[in-house]
């Protein structure tokens, strides 16, 4: 074998091995969570609030409700800001301020979630003298905005310039082009971005520790402390009771399932945008 061929096969092997490793890690994690979690899933797990520690039974309905409410409210707060910033950046490419906005979004994306949590605690929880789901949503919105901004921008950049130019050629105003051409074309992509961002914040634990605080009760009021799946997993995994540790696995399974579902829908939607481009 010539040195050139040897180098080729070694590199080929390394590339393939890395790819297999990546898949293997995901499969092992999902498989392990599935095996550990699925056997304790039952109807009570989804419909009941936790039993007192050390007693059997009970579920994580409080955390399921909490994850949905906190994530949806965070998305509702973050979507307008993220989307509009993304549109601005995409439409004013090359402008100095747009570059600043993009840089800030990237910087904010890099802020560790624990820092966002402390920020939420200091400026929301301490200020209003109460832990609350709303402060958790606001903290998560800070993580939601930059990802949404970047995704919106990237998706809008995918819109064929020919389409926009055609609209301009027909005498459309910029607002009309942005709304009727760019956004309409990229809608599925933007929604996909929103879903990806939601998947990202749904799994966050650190910001919730300082803001949502957790609750053993099923809570619908955003102004009160509330539980969420990642919080419940965190608490249960460290508890002395095997029953709760098992529930932590089940909760992890539900959370992973939820996030994979969001990611899958996102992928499904983005595929449609790519079809339009083609």
């Amino acid at each position, binding site marked *: 074998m010539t040195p050139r061929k040897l180098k080729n096969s070694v590199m080929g092997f390394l590339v393939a091995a890395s790819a297999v490793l990546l898949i293997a890690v995901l499969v092992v994690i999902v498989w392990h969570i599935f095996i550990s979690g699925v056997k304790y899933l039952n109807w009570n797990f989804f419909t009941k609030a*936790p*039993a*007192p*520690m*050390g*007693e059997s039974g009970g579920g994580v309905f409080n955390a399921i409700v909490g994850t949905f*409410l906190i994530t*949806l*409210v965070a*998305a*509702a707060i973050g979507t307008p800001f993220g989307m509009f910033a993304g549109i601005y950046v995409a439409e004013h490419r090359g402008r100095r301020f747009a570059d600043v906005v993009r840089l800030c979004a990237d910087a904010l994306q890099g802020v560790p979630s624990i820092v966002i949590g402390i920020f939420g605690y200091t400026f929301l*929880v*301490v200020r209003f*003298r*109460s*832990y609350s789901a709303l402060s958790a949503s606001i903290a998560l919105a800070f993580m939601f905005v930059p990802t949404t901004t970047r995704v919106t921008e990237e998706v809008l950049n995918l819109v064929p310039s020919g389409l926009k130019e055609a609209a301009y050629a027909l005498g459309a105003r910029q607002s009309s082009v942005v709304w009727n051409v760019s*956004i*309409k074309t990229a*809608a*599925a992509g*933007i*929604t996909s971005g929103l879903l990806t961002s939601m998947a990202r914040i749904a799994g966050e634990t650190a910001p919730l*520790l300082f803001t949502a*605080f*957790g*609750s*053993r*009760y099923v809570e*619908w*009021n*955003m*102004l*009160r*402390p509330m539980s969420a799946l990642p919080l419940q997993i965190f*608490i249960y*995994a*460290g*508890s*002395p*009771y*095997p029953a709760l540790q098992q529930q932590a696995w089940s909760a992890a399974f539900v959370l992973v399932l939820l996030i994979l579902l969001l990611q899958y829908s996102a992928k499904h*939607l983005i595929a*449609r945008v790519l079809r339009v481009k083609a």
Partner: protein
Amino acid sequence: MSAAGRRILSTALVVLVTVGLVVPGAHAASAASTKTIVLTIDSTVATVAGSRVTLDAAPFIVDGRTMLPVRFIADVMGAGVSFTTRANGSVSQVNLGLPDSPTTLKAVTLSLESTTAIVDGQAVTLDTTPVIRQGRTFLPIRFIAEQLGAKVTPVADPSTGRTKSVTIVLPVVSVQVPTQMSGAGATFPLPLYTKMFDVYNGSVGVRVNYQGIGSGGGIKALTDKTVDFGASDAFLTVTETASMGAPVLHIPTCVGAVVLTYSLDGNPTLRLDARTVSDIFLGTITRWNDSRIAALNPGITLPDLSITTVHRSDGSGTTSIFTNYLAVAVPEWKSKVGAGKSVSWPVGLGGKGNDGVAGLVSQNKGAIGYVELVYAIGSKLPYATMRNSSGNFIVASLASSGRAAQIQLPDDLKVFLMNSSDPQAYPIAAFTWLLVYREQKYAGRTLGQAIALKRLLNWMLTTAQSVNEGLGYGTLPGAAVSKAQTLVRSMTYGGAPIPD
């Protein structure tokens, strides 16, 4: 925007708008109404709003003034009561918190030594003082009732012309007591508190949300005033007390024990003493078959295996209890390592939380670590029998840890129970406390919140103590309960005692 995308977004928005509207419906304060109380002099039977009530002592007349037992004023008229005592324990002042509106208390202090009373800081002269008869305190009813805006009408006996009965028309003040409370802190009593609060929710309908974020976290949360109460396994340090900015009460709820757990073949029940444990954690005993361990455990064959010690890597109340025990019992430990929520360990591995320590111990053959008793029981870990200060080997249990509190307790209950002098006490035991501000009117807290908190504390000290035993926590001895109740009674709202 595509139809699918629009549908998803609009559904999300509808959900959010609905959620946003779910805000607690505050109950409107009930309209002003009155309650008629008829008291018969020298009779323990009274009528309150038409129904018969039995008093613990009959009202009587002295110098033309009708005197009423203080208990009745608290129970029927809704007053908060506390007593100021002299050094010998006798009562010198009666402090009342009279609810004169749904959000405020009128602070009234009556002195047993003078006829000058203090009403909201103003001196008022009475023509009588409170009277103590047969251990009960009696107060002049007209003065108290009038402070509450009540109309007092004495009814004379036509034959003798003396007062036969007194009719009081009392305005009813309904304070809105919240049904939600939150607390945070120690993980050690977490299983106990979740069970207690579950029972409380079931019987009283008040939800208490407690989160075990660690003793340090609980102290921080109370300092930041983000919770109704904090919880800690270690009492506040001087610095922590200073940063609280106001006096904080330490209300004990149970006695807990810390046990030494280990990983050895056959799970033998070892006997250890403070000296040996100290030497193990100082790294001077390094092997399980060391003669010092063997001397305590005749009949048990110890392996020729090196000892790995495991301690907490995070700041922990459990570490505080464990190191304070060693510091009290072993002078060498005190000088070399000291005591606190986190110390610099000479040897060993660190694990986060009780679960981290238990995990490291079970994964390393020959390891030894310390965890809370309830954790060891829940996880079915073996734990050592400890020699106490009287030389008896004691198995950690709810009874033996409860015995640790059978000592002379200070009034503020900030006391270590380690190395108790009780001959049947398990030596590594400690109170765990709830922390509350003595003055409850802070950071916009309402009178209702103060009342809710006081009721919860009193409930935890009495009815809820039966929960302790079922879960492996030592119940509070009677002396601790009565001292704790005195502390709870000393809580104020705007300077006035809080009604029960």
